[in-house]
């Protein structure tokens, strides 16, 4: 049985569709992620799961119980769903330990204190227990917000852009830490972010949202290698779409002719930088129009003879092409990915 299930969820404000027909399912202990540019509806979907938005149609179940449906709307405070907010939303009038203990209303005092102590140790902030939120750094506040949300052992944890207000360095390390922590707690969680790296670091399953639609709900690998939508193909990783035509199991494009198992028609061919190699014997000719240093390699932008621009990697010690230099390339593409026009 899945821990969380969304069936055909749509959300609208008046006539504006925010989410259309989103469905997904998550197993217990899995970490999911809603990934998308701002305004794609990812936060709204998350808030609908939390209970702060009411879907116009569809059904949400948590651990087998329907928490939102046509005529059911369980109040947020009764859903046992924890949430970490973008601004952390720490209670400014409470100390760190009181913040963490806020959701622990029931049970014996001893148990509550033990739980707080456990979480403080887990986030390594034991010595700050008596301090107030404003006395702590952003990263520390973030961890407290997480501990606070985890304290009542929710059935699901939602994280709304949890790292967006932190600096890049803290962000990456913290994302890994948080994943480890969630795994240790065997917490089912959903993260909302616009940052792919964060998504890849944290999540087992990622849903890409675009224009109010949940385009694909899959693992990172599948999203990269088997994107089901042109938007995902270019959004995840680097890559461009080349116009191409398929005729009788052959695909014709600026890259020449390749075999493909696909019906005939005009399509877009996904070309990622790793598909192209610098090769003096290569049949594809291009001019270097841009060059970006990436540590162990360069990412080149190349304009092909018929005007399209593609990208290709080259190791530092391999090729040194200057701007406006003419180069030759070859293609290596085992299973071309195309999208019908």
């Amino acid at each position, binding site marked *: 049985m899945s821990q969380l299930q969304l069936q055909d969820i749509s959300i609208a404000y008046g006539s504006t569709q925010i989410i259309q027909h989103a469905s997904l399912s998550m197993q217990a202990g899995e970490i999911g992620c809603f990934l998308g540019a701002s305004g794609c509806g990812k936060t709204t979907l998350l808030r609908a799961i939390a209970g*702060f938005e009411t879907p116009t149609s569809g059904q949400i179940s948590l651990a087998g119980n329907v928490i939102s449906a046509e005529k059911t709307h369980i109040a947020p405070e009764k859903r046992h769903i924890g949430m970490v907010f973008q601004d952390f939303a720490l209670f400014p009038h409470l100390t760190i330990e009181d913040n963490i203990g806020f959701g622990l209303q029931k049970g014996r005092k001893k148990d509550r204190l033990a739980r707080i102590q456990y979480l403080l140790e887990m986030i390594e902030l034991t010595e700050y227990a008596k301090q107030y939120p404003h006395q702590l750094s952003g990263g520390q506040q973030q961890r407290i917000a997480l501990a606070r949300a985890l304290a009542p052992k929710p059935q699901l944890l939602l994280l709304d852009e949890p790292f967006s207000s932190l600096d890049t360095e803290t962000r990456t390390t913290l994302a890994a830490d948080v994943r480890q922590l969630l795994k240790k707690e065997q917490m089912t969680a959903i993260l909302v972010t616009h940052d792919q790296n964060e998504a890849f670091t944290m999540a087992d399953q990622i849903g890409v949202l675009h224009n109010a639609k949940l385009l694909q709900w899959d693992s990172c690998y599948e999203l990269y290698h088997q994107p089901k939508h042109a938007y995902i193909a270019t959004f995840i990783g680097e890559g461009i779409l080349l116009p191409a035509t398929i005729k009788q199991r052959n695909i014709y494009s600026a890259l020449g002719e390749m075999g493909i198992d696909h019906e005939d028609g005009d399509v877009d061919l996904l070309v990622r930088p790793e598909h192209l190699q610098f090769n003096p014997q290569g049949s594809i000719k291009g001019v270097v129009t841009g060059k970006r240093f990436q540590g162990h390699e360069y990412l080149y932008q190349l304009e092909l003879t018929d005007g399209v621009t593609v990208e290709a990697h080259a190791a530092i010690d391999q090729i040194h092409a200057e701007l406006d230099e003419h180069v030759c390339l070859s293609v290596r593409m085992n299973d071309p990915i195309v999208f019908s026009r």
Partner: protein
Amino acid sequence: MRFSLSLLVLIIILPILVILAYLFTPSSAVWQHLYDTVLGTYVTQSAILMVGVGFGSLVLGITSAWLTTLCDFPLRRFFTWSLLLPMAIPAYIIAYTYTGFLDFAGPVQTVLRELFNWSYGDYWFPEVRSLTGAVIMLSLVLYPYVYLLARSAFLSQADSVLEASQSLGLSPWQSFKRVSLPLARPAIIAGLSLVMMETLADFGTVQYFGVDTFTTGIYRTWFGLDENSAAGQLSAILLIFVFTLMILERWSRQQARYHQTSQRVQHSKRYTLKSGSLFSALLFCSLLLLFSFLIPVILLSHWAWLTMDQAFDTEFLTLAGNSLLLAAITAITVVSIAVLLGYGLRIYKQKNFAFLVRLSTLGYATPGVVVAVGVMIPLSWIDHRVDAFMDATFGISTGLLLSGTIFILIFAYTVRFMSVALQSVESGLSKVRPSLDQAAQTLGCQPRQVLTRIHIPIMQGSLLTALLIVFVDVMKELPATLILRPFNFNTLAIRAYELASDERLMEAASSALAIVATGLIPVLILSYSISKQARS
């Protein structure tokens, strides 16, 4: 919860609805008479009064707030709290004192005449009891509302914003005009709207000064001419006017809703004033304090001293006790309701409910006499119905359960001062980010618990402010108290009024002084909390 809140709002706006209902009664013949004779005067005098007092309190309030928050000069700390003191003086009392002080037969003019051997007509002296006089009197005691709100707005502006403006080459004056002032605009407008409402509702001052405003006109039509429906219609027109103003005010605030972009709010740095500007700042603050507080209080003290033997009797203590008790009960009631309504507005984002709540704040701009009538009509109606019902079913006559009791008085105050409390509560609530509510909810809090565990503790400061402002306002309130109070229940304001209106200003001084003194307690607490907040 939603239902009972709506019911609560309906009860509070009942008197206002009663007044508005007069619009639907047939207009009486007296309208033509009013229109031909006095209506034009009422409208123009009220308009001039509002514009004048609005302008006056803006200038005084903003300047003093800016000087005491963003500049540094000797005695700044002292002025920070002392400039709030005039809040404790009711407008009618400052009017009494300045009249006694500056009138033709008053000490100032008499001394002038004796010094220069002038007699009447030889010299020009401004007339206190005039429209201009009323504008000045009201500005002197109402500017603290602007001061208070502008001050806290200036304080909440981050240093970095001001530093940025300085680094962009703005002088203190320019950065005030182009950064501080626009950022503080919503708060200033809120303060201004309080001032406007107080001005419109003022009865004591304008009546004493013989300035015919809409308010005195309503009173005259209602009680003097005994033309209920015409007076009710005049009141309704006033209410509609106020409501339009309120909507404009909210609209303008929504146009300019700024959020702090930086968290760092410390005022380590202030502009250090030198020579000329230092002198002007000191002079401005000193004169303001002198005219708005020191002169009236010294005069009142002097008069109270002269009449001391008769003034401070045992009854005086009873009066003071009544005033304090009434003010305390009302403050707690009003603020509790305001918290419920403010929170209701926050969680039920429903247009209808919001409209009703807006309507409930109309009472503040409604003259006390109008509120009194608006309260009296429905409550005595209810009393009569309840009695008829009880009589018919159980054979018991219940008589007047609500009218003529403390309850009706507190009800009237609630109608009258809801706006003050709600403004404060809403501004407090707006500082609590919505994510805090949601965080608390995801941690299992019911809406009610969110209120008690999150909002109330966080907005303690705003609640204290609300409590104090309502408290002081009730202490000062006169017309409704006069009309509605039960037997043997007098307050300091009533005694002061009775003596002053009997032209016994000197005898009135002790009670007036006591109102000012009791009013000072909360104002001082407020000042203290402000100076503490400024330090921490």
